[in-house]
């Protein structure tokens, strides 16, 4: 992700935690995705059912989930649902995203971010490194403390 940082320490608004090449095809709406057979990128608006995508995950390379206002947390569930169903492509959170929300989004399976406002690199790095332990299993590979306690 280091190449996403610009020289003045502010991250540009395409923040990725993936090694593959960014997907170039623009994301289409859910309706048009479901109506055509060849699209590989889709954008989910809040309120749209992430489960509508489950039959098509194998051909998707990018799913963009909209966060129109930071307090609308439906996208966190959408992210987990997609990862729990085995989706491995790029999962992008886009919209009104606060830097302090990105760690939770990472845990819900998001691996790229397109925040409306630029994010401070140092603050983000500190936020991502802050917690050595987590209490619950989620869509990332972190081990919950109950498992550390009981092996």
């Amino acid at each position, binding site marked *: 992700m280091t190449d996403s940082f610009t020289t003045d320490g502010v991250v540009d608004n395409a923040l990725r935690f993936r090694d593959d090449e960014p997907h170039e095809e623009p994301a289409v709406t859910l309706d048009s995705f479901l109506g055509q057979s060849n699209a590989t990128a889709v954008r989910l608006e*809040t309120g749209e059912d992430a489960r509508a995508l489950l039959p098509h995950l194998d051909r998707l390379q990018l799913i963009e989930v909209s966060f129109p206002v*930071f*307090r*609308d*947390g*439906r996208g*966190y*569930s*959408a992210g*987990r649902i997609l990862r*729990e169903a085995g989706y491995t492509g790029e999962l992008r959170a886009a919209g009104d995203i*606060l830097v*302090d*929300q990105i*760690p*939770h*989004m990472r*845990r*819900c399976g998001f691996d790229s971010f397109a925040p409306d406002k630029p994010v401070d690199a140092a*603050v983000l790095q*500190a*936020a991502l490194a*802050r*917690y*050595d*332990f*987590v*209490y*619950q*299993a*989620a869509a990332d590979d972190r081990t*919950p*403390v*109950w*498992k*550390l*306690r*009981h092996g």
Partner: protein
Amino acid sequence: MYKYDQYDQSIVDARVAEFRDQCARRLKGELTEDQFKPLRLMNGLYLQLHAYMLRVAIPYGTLDSRQMRMLGHIARKYDRGYGHFTTRQNLQYNWIKLEDCGDILADLASVEMHAIQTSGNCIRNISSDQFAGAAADEVTDPRPWAELLRQWSSFHPEFSYLPRKFKIAVIASDEDRAAMRLHDIGMQLIERDGVVGAKIFVGGGMGRTPMIAPEIKDFVPYEDLLSYLEACLRVYNRHGRRDNMYKARIKILVHEIGAEEYARQVEEEFAHVKTLGIDPPRAELDRIAAYFADPAFETGVSDDIDCSDPDFALWLDGNVHAHKRPGYVSVTISLKPIGGIPGDASADQIDLMADLAERYSFDELRVTHSQNIVLPHVKKADLYALWQHLHAAGLGESNLDLISDIIACPGLDYCSLANARSIPVAQKIASRFADMNRQRELGELKLKISGCINACGHHHAGHIGILGVDRKGTENYQLLLGGSGAEDVSLAKITGPGFDEDGIVDAVEKVTDVYLANRAEGERFVDTYRRVGMDPFKEALYG
């Protein structure tokens, strides 16, 4: 008492560093108030009318003397020498400076405490029965289950931006001392075929649309509990209303789609979530439960109490609760002195209660949702000495569950949401009924006051409820009758047009007169109301 291990401590310490950093960014101007607000609201820091208010979590209302003393220390050092115990079994400081917050959280972390998720649209502090682990009528101690939920809900990545705040209560007896069915999720631990599990109620709450939670599932065993709760929360997070903050609580979702349909959706989600392996093994519950093992109760201790001091006898009659062990009781310390602020305690009183807990109650204290303090395990032989200490410190009020044991929100004296003051009304009512003989004659009478429609003062659940509203720029008080937050849960009904500040005190007196004139043998105020209905009360108030 639960003790942090290295993982718990690491997480809480990291939170201190994180919030200290967020406060510093705000103080340096790197964050605007708009940007800071969602961050501080995840940590119980509110900007009130006069200052910041910090709400400290007291998980399931249980704490030890070391923690209690720290609350006193913080009151003295960073506040104006007081703490305010809340209906969520938490503690609030009303006069906090932003630049002190990092140090306060560090002080709290040093005694295994925090302010995590005491506000915000997330899962709040888990509440429970103040007599947990002591009550004679419990199936099991609910606190290990509550601690399990505390850990699961802390920094939950999926459920930190819910449509609205989310409150969970866990009890383990038929008698409900925690207003369980007025929570977003209420859990009653029950035993079935020798196995303890949870009966689940979803969609209760107070606020502007009060609702009693319907039963959603008759029995969830430990092995499925977190999966089931995740399913409950996920259905809410995805489908709860976000278009109107007043319709965003889960009770509205459950009401609009119906309890049966909500339960069906939860079952469907649960069938999926259960496959994810997120439920901790039984060994984790056992590990937590070991911390809540009984203290070293003495055996063969006397049940006799010398009641020759009449003031002591009065207190003893009202403020103790049956204990599971012979020779012991649970003691409730009233934080409702006549003319005082309900739930307030001075730093010195907090210290004294800590000392008394150490000396007489195996180092344990509890906070009740009625804003009082409990010493859960007191030997009967020590009661007189204990009472003398309390009495000398102004903590010997013997008004538990009587009309002056009032729940009141901070109201317009502090709160930026309030429409009317609550505290002066509570003080005037308590003063009107200051005569203990009169209070005892009226018997159990739960009076609850909220300074606005958000109902933090539980007015819907009061035998007598009072709601402060703003009527054309003046404070006006509506009277409600017949609510209960206990196992006989019910929602209070409004009597009619409201009253001014003195008028509401008179109105309360009038309805108590109606009760006295109409009661049958053994009836409490609320029983008489339920039998005779609203009319005689209305007639006395408005006729």
